[in-house]
């Protein structure tokens, strides 16, 4: 990959983000323009901002990589990421806005009038935020490594520094415009190259059968294996080897490998002939965002799919950086309209990554061996078009990827820092917000350096699972059920979210490597969400005396349209 265009593109995105953030609002207005100055954020602008903040590294790079490695089953990811907003629209958006809450802890306090539940919700916001920040930083590291060969942690470090600098310096003055800009940037960065790629695919004779098993090389291809890996062969494979295979050194020798598992040494170059089938790499964890937990998925595909669907459908409403954006809508109806627009914008965006995934399976199948499947989006323009045009398109994609890391990371950092300053750090003030920002970013940064090889798509999935099992019951029951009590809410969040969290920890530690138990722990949403709901309902029913006074009035405020409410009061 030619980095002479990509690096300036990434730098341009970073600078543009900082500039739009710092100067977007500096254009002073005189009173004659007051109506322009004071116009509230419209649903479309806010929707673009929400989408810009929401579409993270996992969406931009990860989905294409997943589709490339594991085929069309993985389309459940984009479906789930989008459909989460449908659930949000139906059950949560308008009442949440009418509650007047800015963050999730605010909502807990507004609904239950309890400081304890507020604290607990704050702790979960920080936990989910950190779990979600981790893959952003690692994705940035991966991107920079693919582009320039820089060390793994450098990209994450750059994102962390830029985000902390802009957020802590108060540079994100016009954050809505920044995020909306990032959405359109990301969409352009995927859409324009995709059009060119499809044209190139057409001129190549429009080969189909992208998902036929097994994938095959369309031309002679040299693959360099950077890390030692085991290749599993279902049928004999003829390959030219320059390096170590099964402990024996070969120098540009043509080998006929029999069926079975073969050990490939680090630094080996394998040259596959045209039409050769792509072997399957057998590895535990690796640095990619896509090739994780594959084994368990094969063992229990149905269970895993349901777990994924439940986590993404119900987890979206509990993402801290999404919730705060709804405050910007002037009223409940606008919040609903915003959500509808978000569904459209995100739906449009998610049409693109699967295209890259399918094309990647045709043109860059070797990525499944080297484990850098997430780089498919970055590598495809160069591979399919080549020349200056390919480099320019590749640079555009790289810029878009960095926009994805920056926008999601800054949104999450703001949300986590807000909770840290309000509920954790002792006193309030501007300086404490800066401290909170640094703290919000340092923990995931250190974690990403410490645990460099963590499967990243899972970190996103697990953040969704924790959010779905703790905040979804709180929001849905809080909005729709009058008999919810503070002890019930606290117990439900602790049991549901806590058990999901423990499952997350166990999975990350690789506790039970295989088997049904591993599947249960790797996809906790299917049991932890019902557990959270059940605990919340049962404990609430067991403590009927603790229903907060004024629950009826609070729920009326959540559900009545604003105009009606004014009439009722008057």
């Amino acid at each position, binding site marked *: 990959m030619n980095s002479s265009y990509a690096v300036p593109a990434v730098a341009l995105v970073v600078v543009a983000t900082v500039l739009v953030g710092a100067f977007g*609002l500096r254009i002073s207005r005189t009173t004659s323009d*007051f109506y322009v100055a004071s116009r509230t954020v419209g649903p479309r602008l806010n929707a673009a901002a929400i989408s810009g903040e929401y579409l993270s590294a996992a969406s931009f790079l990860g989905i294409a990589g997943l589709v490339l490695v594991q085929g069309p089953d993985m389309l459940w990811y984009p479906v789930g990421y989008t459909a989460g907003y449908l659930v949000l629209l139906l059950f949560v958006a308008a009442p949440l806005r009418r509650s007047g809450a800015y963050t999730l802890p605010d909502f807990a306090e507004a609904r239950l009038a309890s400081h304890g539940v507020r604290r607990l919700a704050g702790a979960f916001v920080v936990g989910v935020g950190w779990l979600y920040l981790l893959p952003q930083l690692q994705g940035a590291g991966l991107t920079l490594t693919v582009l320039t060969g820089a060390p793994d942690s450098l990209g994450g470090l750059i994102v962390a520094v830029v985000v902390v600098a802009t957020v802590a310096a108060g540079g994100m003055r016009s954050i809505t415009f920044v995020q909306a800009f990032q959405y359109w940037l990301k969409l352009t960065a995927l859409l324009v190259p995709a059009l060119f790629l499809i044209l190139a695919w057409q001129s190549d004779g429009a080969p189909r059968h992208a998902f036929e098993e097994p994938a095959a090389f369309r031309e002679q291809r040299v693959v360099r294996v950077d890390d030692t890996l085991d290749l599993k062969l279902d049928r004999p494979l003829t390959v030219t080897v320059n390096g170590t295979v099964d402990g024996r050194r070969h120098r540009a020798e043509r080998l006929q490998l029999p069926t079975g598992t073969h050990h490939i040494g680090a630094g080996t170059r394998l040259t596959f002939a045209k039409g050769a089938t792509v072997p399957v790499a057998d590895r535990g964890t690796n640095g990619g965002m896509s090739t994780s937990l594959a084994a368990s998925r094969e063992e229990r595909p149905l269970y895993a799919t349901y777990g994924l669907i439940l986590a993404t459908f119900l987890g979206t409403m509990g993402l801290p950086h999404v919730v705060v954006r709804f*405050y*910007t809508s002037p009223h409940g109806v606008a919040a609903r309209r915003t959500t509808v627009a978000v569904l459209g914008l995100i739906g449009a965006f998610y049409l693109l990554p699967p295209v890259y995934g399918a094309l990647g399976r045709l043109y860059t199948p070797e990525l499944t061996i080297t484990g850098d499947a997430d780089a498919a989006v970055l590598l495809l323009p160069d591979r399919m078009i080549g020349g200056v045009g390919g480099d320019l398109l590749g640079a555009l994609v790289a810029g878009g990827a960095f926009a994805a890391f920056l926008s999601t990371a800054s949104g999450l950092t703001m949300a986590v820092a807000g909770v840290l300053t*309000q509920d954790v750090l002792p006193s309030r003030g501007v300086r404490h917000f800066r401290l909170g920002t640094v703290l919000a970013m340092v923990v995931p940064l250190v974690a990403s350096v410490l645990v460099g090889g963590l499967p990243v798509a899972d970190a996103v999935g697990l953040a969704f699972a924790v959010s779905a099992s703790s905040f979804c019951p709180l929001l849905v029951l809080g909005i729709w059920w009058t008999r919810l009590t503070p002890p019930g809410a606290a117990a439900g969040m602790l049991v549901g979210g806590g058990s999901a969290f*423990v499952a997350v920890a166990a999975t*990350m530690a690789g506790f039970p490597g295989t088997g049904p138990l591993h599947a249960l722990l790797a996809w906790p949403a299917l049991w932890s969400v019902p557990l959270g709901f059940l605990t919340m309902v049962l404990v609430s029913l067991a403590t009927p005396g603790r229903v907060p006074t004024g629950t009826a009035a609070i729920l009326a405020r959540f559900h009545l349209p*604003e105009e009606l409410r004014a009439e009722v009061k008057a």
Partner: protein
Amino acid sequence: MSGFLAGLCVAVLPLLAAGFWLGRRTARPESLGGLGTPVEHATFQTLHTASLAAPPLRAGLTGETARRSARRLRTLLGTDALCLTDQKQVLAWEGVGDHHRAEIMERLAGPLETGRGEAFRLKCDAPDCPLRWAVVAPLTVDDRVHGALVACAPRESAVLVRAAGEVARWVSVQLELADLDQSRTRLIEAEIKALRAQISPHFIFNSLAVIASFVRTDPERARELLLEFADFTRYSFRRHGDFTTLADELHAIDHYLALVRARFGERLSVTLQIAPEVLPVALPFLCLQPLVENAVKHGLEGKAVNAAGKSRISITAQDAGAEALVVIEDDGAGMDPDLLRRILAGEVSPSGGIGLSNVDDRLRQVYGDDYGLVIETAVGAGMKITARLPKYQPGVHSASRRSEQ
């Protein structure tokens, strides 16, 4: 391997949190235990329990507050059961013998009427019920009986009667404080009501005079100004709701400025920078307009000598995490900081207008003492007023949104 490390880190975090919490829980008695003789220790324990029971009661005598304080009060008295009642019913029953509720309420009619405590024997059919005697101590606020504290025990004891009386008196003091809080809130509400009716008469006269001056020369402009005037007064005299949104307040300020600019023309230039994210923030009604009025007054005062001198006012509203930051700045006469401090402390009444001190009081009342106005000024150096408005505060909800424009 690194995955294992990550999991380990994640697993250790909740453990650390739990350990921290346990440590905090267990550390408190330890620190008490290190203090002095057993008598002193007992005193500290008693005072500590009493101080724990106080906060809920400060919110007045309701079912919720009674329930939360009753457990501490029972620890304080060391009886088998303790109950708090208001005039009509039992609010909270702490301890054993719940079946005595109805009986107690019947027997309370007398003490609640007279406001005098008494002890009586309980009728009980349950052989294992330890409650045989009940000691009643009324809770009084300003000589009115609000409820009663009933302590139940196996036998009659003069010590218990005396202790129950003392505890009841202590609870009464807390309730009186709650009463005081309420009257303070009512006072501020009354002030706001007064403030609404207190648009400066000068402003009305001047506005009408300006409008009159345009009636012949520029009837269209006069009509517009009249409508601005109507909009501004409608907002100021609004009856419902104590809170409004920043968008509505800024619109009222816009109407106000339109009238002021009609009068002063080129001498006044106003710059606005509003972050659209903060427009939905709820804030106390009419708490920024007085600040702008103040800025206009001071800004023009400083330039009065030189009629050509222009006055600049800038109004900015920024998004700052969980808060909105509103800054109103003028380049006018400024003010002596000491005088300003005295005005804010209420020692000197300002020369006309309700202005700063009222806004400051209300912000502190609603958001807490951290959220008072921050004013930077010196004589001749203009004035910069900063108000921080939290995006969310329990109990702060804007009453309505502006009718669709």
